């Protein structure tokens, strides 16, 4: 399997790109063929992902594996350097899984204006960008993949989205681009200040030569890029619009993977390269994170639209992830990575459910919904299950993202104020109560009671074939990870320790 060690990651990233070209040459009207080819491409990519999972050496999860380091842009000393460690692995696996499931889910119901060819090509481009971001070990390569997801998502929201789609799509685009403009300046500053390299492992080794004040500024640039993507309060305003207007599949990918690009950026780039600055910034990041938790929860309580409610809940959940990261401890960052995967699965599922509800009722307005358990009991139960998972019920995946993040705030990394982080901890704990509040209230309004008069006579399909196929793996994973979290913590822990090792040196 030597070839797999060198070609595995490139296959994972560029198979979907090949798929884009192939689908591009298929006739637009042969929709069945287009769907089958796209499905095959995403399944093949996922098979590569299975190969990665199988061949990954979990004994040295902190080392970069399947590494490739080739010339790319010699002129600026940027290289095609890819590799994965225990932090990247679960995220790239998630990205591949969600891509397959999205193709399956959209099989028979492409949103208006239909056109599966364009839609699926965009989906494949998205997958290239997502997989690429998680494997890149070079800042410029990372930047290119990080930005690559913008165009397909812009079109996915803008063409296939809801009534307010044009506004939402450009807002999404402008916000993220603003962040990445500052981020790339940060990358270039790193390049010039730390030994003329964009190589992430090399920068981790070198960047301590940068003086403290410059580090703070560079971290600020990276912070803007990643925090807008996460999104953290107060940069979150693009998210509810984008989620609400996006087609179901777009929302799912946005929630499941795109938001993780931001948090992943913190864990992969900002923290390990600039640990000193991270210690200085951490109280602010933690503060914004808990504000996001409370704000997201209160925002959710106020929503009348199902998708918008879930979108605000994303702000709150990503707040937990960021709080975990801000503690700069093993415990917290492990929780954060777990939280990313769990949020991806759970919120992805919630958006699937919301999409299916909208398809059946032609509305997402909570006031008009009700009695789902009577009309479509299976869908109702799945929604309930996901709501429980989302509010952090022990035994399901969501719990392991939130609970350890809160615990970690009790004892943040040396150099951070314990009193401050314990305050954050209390506030975050209140956030979980609010989360239970808005999720249960949401569930109550959609699933309980009797169907509203306007839908009383309507014939509502329960969960159908493609939905089952698309949802079963995610539901199963939510349970499996909830019952046996070691599956994921085992992968991430060693890699996280190498990240946090630097903070001990700084704070001690």
């Amino acid at each position: 399997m030597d070839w797999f060690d060198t070609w595995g990651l490139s296959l994972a990233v560029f198979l979907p790109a090949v798929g884009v070209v192939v689908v591009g040459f298929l006739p637009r009207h042969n929709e069945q063929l287009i769907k089958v080819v796209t499905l095959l491409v995403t399944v093949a990519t996922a098979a590569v992902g299975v190969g990665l999972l199988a061949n990954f050496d979990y004994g040295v999860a902190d080392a970069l594996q399947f590494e490739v380091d080739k010339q790319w842009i010699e002129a600026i000393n940027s290289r095609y350097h890819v590799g994965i460690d225990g932090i990247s692995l679960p995220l790239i696996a998630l990205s591949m899984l969600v891509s397959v499931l999205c193709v399956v889910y959209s099989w028979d119901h492409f949103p208006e204006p239909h056109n599966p060819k364009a839609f699926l090509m965009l989906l494949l481009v998205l997958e290239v960008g997502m997989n690429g971001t998680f494997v890149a070990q070079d800042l410029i390569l990372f930047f290119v993949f990080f930005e690559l997801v913008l165009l397909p998502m812009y079109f996915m929201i803008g063409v296939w989205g809801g009534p307010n789609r044009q506004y939402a799509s450009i807002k999404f685009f402008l916000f993220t681009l603003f962040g990445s403009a500052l981020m790339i300046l940060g990358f270039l500053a790193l390049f010039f200040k730390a030994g003329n390299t964009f190589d992430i492992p090399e920068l981790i080794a070198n960047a301590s030569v940068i003086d403290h004040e410059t580090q703070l500024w560079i971290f600020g640039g990276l912070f803007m890029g990643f925090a807008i993507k996460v999104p953290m309060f107060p940069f979150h305003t693009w998210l509810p619009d984008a989620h609400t207007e996006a087609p179901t599949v777009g929302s799912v990918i946005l929630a499941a993977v795109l938001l993780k690009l931001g948090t992943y950026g913190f864990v992969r780039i900002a923290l390990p390269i600039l640990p000193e600055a991270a210690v200085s910034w951490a109280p602010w990041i933690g503060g914004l994170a808990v504000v996001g938790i409370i704000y997201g929860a209160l925002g959710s309580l106020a929503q009348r639209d199902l998708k918008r409610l879930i979108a605000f809940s994303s702000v709150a959940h990503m707040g937990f992830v960021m709080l975990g990261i801000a503690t700069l401890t093993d415990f917290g960052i492990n929780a954060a990575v777990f939280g990313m995967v769990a949020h991806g699965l759970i919120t992805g599922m919630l958006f699937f459910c919301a999409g299916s509800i909208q398809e059946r009722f032609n509305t997402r307005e909570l006031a008009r919904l009700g009695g789902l358990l009577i009309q479509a009991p299976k869908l109702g139960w799945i929604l309930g299950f996901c709501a429980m998972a989302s509010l952090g019920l022990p035994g399901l995946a969501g719990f392991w993202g939130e609970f350890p993040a809160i615990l970690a705030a009790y004892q943040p990394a040396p150099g951070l104020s314990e009193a401050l982080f314990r305050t954050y901890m209390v506030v975050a704990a209140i956030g979980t109560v609010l989360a239970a509040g808005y999720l249960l209230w949401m569930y109550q309004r959609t699933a309980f009671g009797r169907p509203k008069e306007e839908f009383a006579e309507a014939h509502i399909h329960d969960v159908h074939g493609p939905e089952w196929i698309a949802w079963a793996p995610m539901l199963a994973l939510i349970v499996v990870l909830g019952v046996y979290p070691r599956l994921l913590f085992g992968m991430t822990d060693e890699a996280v320790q190498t990240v946090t090792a630097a903070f001990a040196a700084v704070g001690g």
Partner: protein
Amino acid sequence: MPAALLAQAGGFTAPHLDYAALSPELLLLGVLVAVLLVDLVVDETRKYLVTQLAGVGVLVSIVPVIALAVNGDDRSMFGGAYVVDDFALLFKGLFLAMGYVVLLMSTRYIEEGDYYEGEYSFLLLSSLLGMVVMSSSRDLISIFVALELLSIPAYMLAGWRKRDLRSNEAALKYYLLGVLASAVMLYGMSLVFGVSGSTLLTTIGAAVAGSPGEQPVVTLGIFLIVVGFAFKVSAVPFHFWAPDTYEGAPTPVTAFLSVASKTGGFVALLQLVYVGFFGRPDVWGPLFWVLAALTMTVGNLVALRQTNIVRLLAYSSVAQAGYILVPFAVAGESPAAVGSAQTATIVYLVIYAAMNLGAFAIVMAVARKTRSGEIASYGGLFNYAPGLTVLMTIFVFSLAGIPPLGGWFAKLAIFQAALDAGTFNAVLLAVVAGVNSVIALFYYASVAREMWMRPVPDEDRTPVNVPAPLAAALGLTAIAVVAIGVYPQAVARLGDLAHLATG
């Protein structure tokens, strides 16, 4: 009198002419004359032969450029006034490639519009010759001659739709302001010549570098020359001719002006600044800083309000000129960054040529059906012309600098130069450029939004008929944009090779 002249002529020794080094210019001159002659003999129905001859001639002229580049020797003539080095060859190749693409774009347009075809090709080639000469000019006189040679045919081309009032207006505005710019520039040149006693850039470089402060006249000279070229590259506040001229001129000519003519201005600036005035960054550094910041910001903000695609692209190209000015400002901030600043300008010019020509080719293709330049006429283009839509999407987002399309690397090169300098002013300018690229995205995306997300106006879904030459132009530019975006090393290497030795 004649006797006295003859006596003087006796003492005249012909300068050494390196015919190999001059072969691209000589070939182009030959083609130009041939075009003029063939135009005289072929009858009305076969005028297309003239355009084809011009196209082939331009392509053939690229051959010696490549041969000289492979050979690699730097050749210098007239005591250093005319130099053929990597810098010159890169831009000669670029100009000829642009010229070929513009000829491809023009072919059907001129034919179907019932305009003079032979003369059109002749003037286009003349202007092109001016640009090719400009690439080698390291002397105030040859720079000025090259500038006039590239400008004067362009004044006429701008008015080629002579029965259209707006085309007349375009040509007149362009002409008057062009002449004004030349006058300002000449005055500056005369001052610089007065101080240094030479028109040779290297000599000027040595003369102006010494004793700064004692020579306010040098400051004024440099200032006026830069301002003259600021007109040429449509930098704010000397840009106001550009939108009217671009809108009124025939679209292929607009493409030519906004890409080739602008590049000509920048080539001159590169040589003047880095060879001639490099010792006085205190004069041109702040000047370029202000020009760059203003040009980016004003260009982008005004572009936001445009409803006509050509005017939008006009203001976009004003803004793009602002980005290209950034490296100049940065090089003035820190001489250490001169290497990455030169690379950035060169890289940006190459990538800008591909993406902007492509965008104009789309404008021409779409106008064949809609007969309109309004952005609203692009509504729903994706429904009946998906190919053109995808290509236009590639071009506008490349102009916006979104990876993996060529434009991202151009922007990156600019940022890199700024951070290489690393001073507060340089980084501030980079932040201004960064914010501007976000503003710019809004109007570039509005074109995409129109094509992808809006309904078709009048439900007229007849397909767009794209003639073969235009399709070829689109194909060439699109391939260049995507290939450079995925593998930027190709142009980055050129940019590094083609540095000017700073004076």
